[in-house]
């Protein structure tokens, strides 16, 4: 199994000069796979369609979170309405300001173990897949890797289950 066999081909993406307002809307409506709506991250491509970053829900949270709060334990001293105020200020800021620039990627021919290696070592749940020309062709999600593992486990035991569970799983994969 290779990265390209499991990835979801590239559909939606952002440009660096999109606003966070546009970005959140796309995160909300973008499709992952055939049926699932809403994604937790979107790749950011520049004008020449080169992958320059990735914007995740976490990055959106960071956009409304004052960086000084990382330095001390101040959560107990925040007030109601603080997030609302910061969100209003962040809405028109640009994606490039908050996207993660150092993107961990895999090649379309990377083995599945290589993909898991990158996910675990970098603590990421999705990884952009690049073709030979370093063009973004899709996204590989942790959940899809998990489904593959599930499938293998159930196949090993299929002598008992007679493939019944396997069918259930394939059906499940598309929907959930």
């Amino acid at each position: 199994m290779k990265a390209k066999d499991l990835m979801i081909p590239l559909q939606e993406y952002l440009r660096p000069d999109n606003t966070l307002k546009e970005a959140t809307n796309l995160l909300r409506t973008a499709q992952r796979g055939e049926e699932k709506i809403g994604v937790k991250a979107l790749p950011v491509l520049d004008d020449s369609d080169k992958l320059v970053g990735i914007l995740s829900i976490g990055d959106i949270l960071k956009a409304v979170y004052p960086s000084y709060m990382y330095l001390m334990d101040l959560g107990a001293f925040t007030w109601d309405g603080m997030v609302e105020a910061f969100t209003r200020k962040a809405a028109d800021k640009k994606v490039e300001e908050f996207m993660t620039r150092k993107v961990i990627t895999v090649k379309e021919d990377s083995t599945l173990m290589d993909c898991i290696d990158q996910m675990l070592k970098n603590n990421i749940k999705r990884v952009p897949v690049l073709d030979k020309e370093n063009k973004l062709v899709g996204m590989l999600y942790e959940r899809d890797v998990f489904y593959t593992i599930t499938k293998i486990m159930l196949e090993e035991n299929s002598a008992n289950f007679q493939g019944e569970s396997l069918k259930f799983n394939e059906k499940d994969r598309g929907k959930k």
Partner: protein
Amino acid sequence: MTQEVVAASQVVTGSSFWTATAIFVLVYALIVFEKIHKTILAIFGAALMIVLGIVTQEDAFNSRDLGIDWNVIFLLISMMIIINIMKPTGVFEYIAIKSAKAAKGKPFMIMAIFSVVTAVASALLDNVTTILLIAPVTMLICQALEIDVVPFLITEALASNIGGTATLIGDPPNIMIASKAQLGFMAFIYNLTPVIIVVLIAYVITIKFIFAKKLHVRDELRQRVMAMNENDAIKDPVLLKKSLAVLAITITGFVLHGMLHFEPATIALFGAGLLLLLSGEKKPHYILAQVEWTTLFFFMGLFIIIGGIVKVGLVKLMAVKVLEITQGNLFGTTMIVLWFSALASAFIDNIPYVATMNPVIIDMAKQLWPDVSGIHLLHHPDLMPLWWSLALGAGLGGNGTAIGASANVIVMGMAEKTGNPISFKKFMLYGMPLMIESVAICTAYVWLRYYVLKI
């Protein structure tokens, strides 16, 4: 003195003199350009000094005059360990929130109280540590009050440099001076703390004139601050009690270290060791990793580089030149040291500056009193005002510009990150006059205390 000048100029002929001078000048120049990290420059420069045979490895690692001053390194390490253990207890958040409430959420009162708290904390802790502890709370409170945080950040950075100058442990230059000149904790308290208190009072009055009228907030926003409960800050009351007890023991130890015949670093190391033990920490890795090794390696590298230029006689040459300019007039020399240190520290890092000036002052003393040596030379009554002027100039001078002190650099960085960048010019507009005011007060103090009253 003419003989000494000849002796000094004779050193110039050696090739090792030029090698060491070149390394020193190059490293310092590159530090100013900031293209390569200063710690990398210091480590590489130090390695060059040894590889090129200017100083031996033995000198570099083990000589107090030519090598790494472990007294400074261990004092810094130990204080960093104590703070790293204390930080998660929430005590610093507690103090800051309590201060803001004591000010009743009134903006200028917050500014004044935060400045004083910052100054006092800086006198006991490293300035950078203090700023990293007070600035985040300041930003939160300014956001709650919906006022511009920039004046608060600038006044705190300035206050931290003022407070840091007050004690032996307040600021790395003072630690270096204390170690080189073998001056105790109480000597700093007697000689520097009184004038710093005056400087701080004058400072608060001055910022009142500058900022008080401009700062206004609506009452309902003040309620946001008054609604904060400082007790929520305390995360680990048991560790807090242990930490405060150890801090009290450590500070008492500093006060008594002369009587106990311990170096300050011994006291600090004891405090750090005791708190590590009492904290019940199973794995000290995290606490030790949090020690600012980058800063410490910068110090180590610098000490070796300075050792090199001491050994080849460059420092002696500098000392002779300074005395030539002042014609051996001690009051004149003191004033030059005070003001030159202030101006130099406004533009360059005061740590390498003081690292260079320490041996220069010792060499000046050797020129002036060739028959005296050891502690009698270091503590020659006529030399003392020079040490204090160096400490005051280097400590307060940092306030002159945004790059003058690490605390300033940190608030600039924080302000930029939160979308309120402070320009170099804006910082200087406040910093430079306030720095000149403080050094002027010190001028009067040094003159009055050491040359008129002679106490």
